[in-house]
């Protein structure tokens, strides 16, 4: 099943945005919608052309869609940013229709009225908070409006920036979902010390995508476990640690060439391609691998193996 997400607050795009886009499309989503009228973040303005080109590339690969409000779109289906003096106009793949947005926002305000106390929510046990008052409500409305826009774009969910994710989580009491998955991915990337994914080439991203589905299944299972209360204490950190323990064990096994020829051709090739230098692949070939069962277990971790290889040996695959 295709999973399309909307990135919240994508009015500003920079290297960090691209990193998050890549994390999402490599690990748990098929495409991410960002604002067509985005501006390049001030801190990355020196790299504006590079960022623009990277977004174009990801869009051509189908991993990024550009969305716009109807009022921003011209007759040619392109949207501009008035801040840039309309110098940059980009295509709008998805458009929020003005006619239905008004109705949806009206419904959103009804919801906001009924849950406005939750805008002041704090962590359990925290000292009785004082309320600024209006700012919390404005924040809650903006988060709800983001949900509305995501729904208007027929997206499956939202990809949030860290600030909004924290706010949404505190508002809605840590409901697991994309926030949980994104947090697990962040942990995994941190534990693997992979750093930013922005250095992956378009080809490497395509290759990673071949392995995404199996890893996503693992992530989904974690989220379902939390949602069903099977493990109420499970956290993104614990989930990531468990994934990493299994990954380390399996990758250590595979680093030893003691497997036989029974493994299916494609997965063997994937494992070899992902983990071993070309010289080793040539030397041991398919004969190096034996068991189908482990090959099945390995499948979800091929993505991590490939990422480690791509980012640690950046010259490979370029």
């Amino acid at each position, binding site marked *: 099943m295709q999973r399309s997400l909307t990135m919240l*607050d994508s009015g500003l795009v920079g290297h960090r945005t691209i990193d998050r886009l890549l994390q999402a499309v490599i690990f748990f989503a098929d495409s991410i919608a960002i604002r067509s009228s985005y501006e390049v973040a001030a801190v990355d303005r020196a790299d504006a052309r590079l960022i623009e080109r990277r977004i174009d590339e990801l869009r051509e690969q189908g991993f990024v869609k550009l969305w716009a409000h109807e009022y921003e779109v011209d007759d040619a289906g392109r949207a501009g940013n008035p801040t840039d003096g309309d110098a940059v106009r980009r295509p709008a793949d998805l458009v929020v229709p003005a006619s239905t947005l008004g109705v949806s926002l009206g419904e959103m305000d009804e919801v906001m009225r009924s849950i406005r106390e939750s805008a002041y929510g704090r962590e359990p046990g925290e000292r009785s908070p004082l309320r600024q008052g209006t700012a919390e409500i404005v924040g809650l409305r903006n988060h709800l409006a983001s949900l509305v826009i995501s729904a208007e774009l027929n997206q499956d969910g939202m990809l949030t*920036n860290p600030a909004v994710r924290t706010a949404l989580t505190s508002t809605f009491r840590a409901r697991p979902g994309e926030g949980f998955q994104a947090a697990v991915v962040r942990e995994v990337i941190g534990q693997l010390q992979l750093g930013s994914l922005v250095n992956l080439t378009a080809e490497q991203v395509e290759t990673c995508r071949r392995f995404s589905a199996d890893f996503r299944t693992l992530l989904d299972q974690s989220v379902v476990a939390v949602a069903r209360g099977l493990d109420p204490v499970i956290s993104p950190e614990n989930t990531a640690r468990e994934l990493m323990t299994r990954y380390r064990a399996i990758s250590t096994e595979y680093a030893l060439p003691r497997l036989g020829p029974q493994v299916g051709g494609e997965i063997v090739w994937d494992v070899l391609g992902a983990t071993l230098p070309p010289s080793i692949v040539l030397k041991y070939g398919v004969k190096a691998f034996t068991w189908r069962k482990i090959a099945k277990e390995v499948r979800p971790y091929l993505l991590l193996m490939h990422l480690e290889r791509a980012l640690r040996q950046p010259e490979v695959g370029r």
Partner: protein
Amino acid sequence: MELTIETVRTGWQQALDLFQGGQAVRIATRHGISFDLPGLTVRLTNPSDLSAPEGYPYPELIKDYRDRLFGNQRGRSLLFQRMRRWGGDEGEAFDQIGRIVDLLRRDPTSRSAVFSTWSPPSDLNAPFPVSPVGGAVRVVADTLHLFVTARSVDVWVGFVPELLAFAQLASDLSQELGMRRSTVSYQCWSAHIYEVDLLSYLTRR
């Protein structure tokens, strides 16, 4: 930029209209795209009319704000604590507004009737820092002038409750000090409206 309004009821529309003329700057913020007027002063000439504007969609927020300054929500209000119980956590609470009334009773021409609500150690990095951040009260020619400085106001959502609450404060202080009338001068460093709300507003019109 300055705007003179007679009442909040009629003035909200005038404030919203400021966002139609292309003077507002489009900004990508952490909450989304907003249209911003960097520095707006609103002069409210008749604060005694506390009725809400027709079509203002959040009447419950007007009540919430009043309750935070004058009603049963005062104990949980950051603004009330700063204005009327400053320093109450560590020692004796200081009622800035009460002291201002005392001062102006003693010396109606005083120019020192100033209150401040901004606490840098707490507010500078807070997710929801206090606003308004301060103000002053002056008595001139039988008129009480309440000056209020807000760091930021969402004109679609927060402008009406905030201005009505301070209109009520001006009226109350005016009565307490025996003045014939009052005005509110409300300055905000950011008067803004979020994109979706501007779209709602334009659609309604």
